[in-house]
């Protein structure tokens, strides 16, 4: 259909928008084809009619309105921002807050027992500090049958149990000794063993009660705390009771002694002697217990179980305990993998609500944004 083909080209021909060859072709065709010539003429008239349209001038005030709209948008921008951005901002803020809360929970959940900050353990309610309780808990010295104020401080037996993983066992053992001595205490007990090339030992430090917290913190700094137990046993009552009983027995002893002075019969003397021995023994027993309590309260006990961390690279030629090291390394890896899996599980559980919320927010924002853009479109 050459005619239709030509008709398609007539409009661009009119505009001189054809390539040289096409233009010439159309030119030649139009010269020979009356129909196309008529068509071209009609198109030319059409185009001319459209071009003859009077130029349109914009009505008055157009420019001013554009300017007014733009400066209005400029000044109201901060106010417009708030509603426009409130959704995403609110969503972001909520997400940040939730992530923060859950991270805190997560951290608390995953922190090993021993890595509690020192402040935490000082605030431990089971261990009242001597200075806190001193004044109010004093037994009243007045009263008809009041006992002399024998206890001026609450007697608390403090104990700590720590398990440490350390890099160098020997070094830590020496440091423990130094620490105890510097605190005015001593190492009451130490045991040492080697398990498959991994040295480990138990040390029992006795340090003055007042230095308990400081020493515990210092010991914890020597390695990675894997276990930690702090105990405080209030023995004040038992202490007071013991003192009272000892005093009574002493009075009884005095009486017996005065009876003995006045005794005339040998049988009486023997009976009194026997009584005295029993009272004396009881006094000694109670005094021993009293002294033990006193010492326990004065000197806190810190049991430290120290274990050297498994090192996979020791001496190049040192194969002693290689099997043990391998086993330890293997177990350590398995433990790490398991704890990693656990961590992933815990993290996923902790984050699941956050992610769900975030997804919800995202969908809402997307929906709203899409709604807005389709409105603008």
């Amino acid at each position: 259909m050459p005619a239709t083909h030509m008709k398609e080209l007539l409009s661009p021909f009119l505009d001189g928008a054809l390539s040289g060859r096409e233009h010439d072709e159309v030119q030649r065709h139009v010269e020979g084809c009356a129909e196309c010539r008529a068509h071209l003429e009609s198109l030319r008239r059409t185009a001319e009619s459209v071009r003859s349209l009077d130029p349109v001038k914009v009505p008055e005030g157009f420019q001013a309105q554009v300017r007014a709209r733009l400066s209005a948008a400029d000044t109201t921008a901060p106010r417009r921002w708030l509603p426009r951005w409130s959704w995403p901002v609110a969503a972001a803020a909520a997400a940040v807050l939730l992530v923060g809360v859950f991270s805190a929970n997560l951290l608390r959940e995953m922190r090993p027992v021993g890595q509690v900050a020192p402040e935490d353990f000082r605030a431990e309610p089971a261990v009242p500090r001597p200075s806190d309780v001193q004044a109010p808990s004093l037994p009243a010295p007045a009263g008809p049958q009041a006992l002399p104020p024998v206890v001026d401080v609450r007697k608390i037996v403090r104990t700590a149990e720590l398990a440490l993983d350390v890099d160098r066992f020997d070094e830590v053992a020496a440091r423990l000794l130094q620490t105890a001595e510097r605190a005015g205490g001593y190492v009451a007990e130490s045991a040492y063993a080697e398990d498959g090339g991994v040295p480990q030992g138990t040390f029992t430090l006795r340090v003055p009660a007042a230095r308990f917290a400081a020493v515990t913190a210092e010991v914890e700094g020597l390695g990675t705390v894997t276990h930690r137990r702090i105990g405080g046993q209030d023995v004040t009552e038992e202490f007071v009771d013991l003192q009272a009983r000892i005093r009574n027995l002493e009075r009884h002893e005095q009486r017996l002694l005065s009876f003995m002075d006045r005794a005339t019969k040998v049988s009486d003397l023997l009976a009194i002697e026997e009584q005295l021995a029993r009272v004396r023994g009881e006094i000694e027993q109670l005094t021993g217990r009293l002294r033990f309590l006193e010492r326990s309260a004065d000197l806190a006990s810190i049991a430290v179980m120290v274990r050297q961390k498994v090192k996979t690279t020791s001496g190049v030629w040192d194969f002693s305990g290689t099997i043990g090291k391998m086993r330890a390394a293997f177990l350590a890896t398995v433990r790490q993998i398991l704890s990693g899996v656990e961590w992933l599980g815990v993290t996923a559980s902790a984050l699941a609500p956050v992610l769900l919320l975030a997804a919800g927010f995202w969908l809402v924002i997307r929906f709203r944004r899409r709604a807005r853009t389709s409105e603008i479109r």
Partner: protein
Amino acid sequence: MGVTVDEGTLLAASRRGDLTAYDELVGAYQDRVYQLTYRVTGNPEDAWDAAQEAFVKAFRALKAFRGDAAFSTWLHRIAVNAALDIIRRRPPALDPLDAAAAVTTESVDRMVEQRELQRAIHRAIASLPPDQRVAVVLRDVQGFSYGEIAAVLQVPVGTVRSRLSRARDALRHALADLSPARAHSDEQSEWR
């Protein structure tokens, strides 16, 4: 055309948010943009709205304008889209003046008057499908080349060519009745 000399300066200032500089650009382009939106939307109210929208949008989008096209081309693109948006959103409403004119066009004598002819052409353009309308307005009203139209509409030149061709063919039929020589067929076309 003195404005075009420092158009680059005005653009740079506008991009920094200088409303006074942009005001000058609006002054320079408002008639052309309004003419475009008027011929595409077909009525002054929509034309005003579309042109306003175009200038406001252009100012906000100026930061994204990288200058890889002429500002005029870019502005026309925004204006065409704004006009098409309005057409799409609003039901096709005739210019009230045109509607009134449609009743009186039965008079052939008045039809040949220049004013009426203008209105008839305007109505004929307005009756075209939006794509063809935009093409013919850009070509024959705004006087763009095929290449420029392709740049404004972001379509290949071949598409511009065929749209324009179809638009003119449709206009040819619509306007044929208006030519004085065929004045008598006018009544027939009214009956159709």
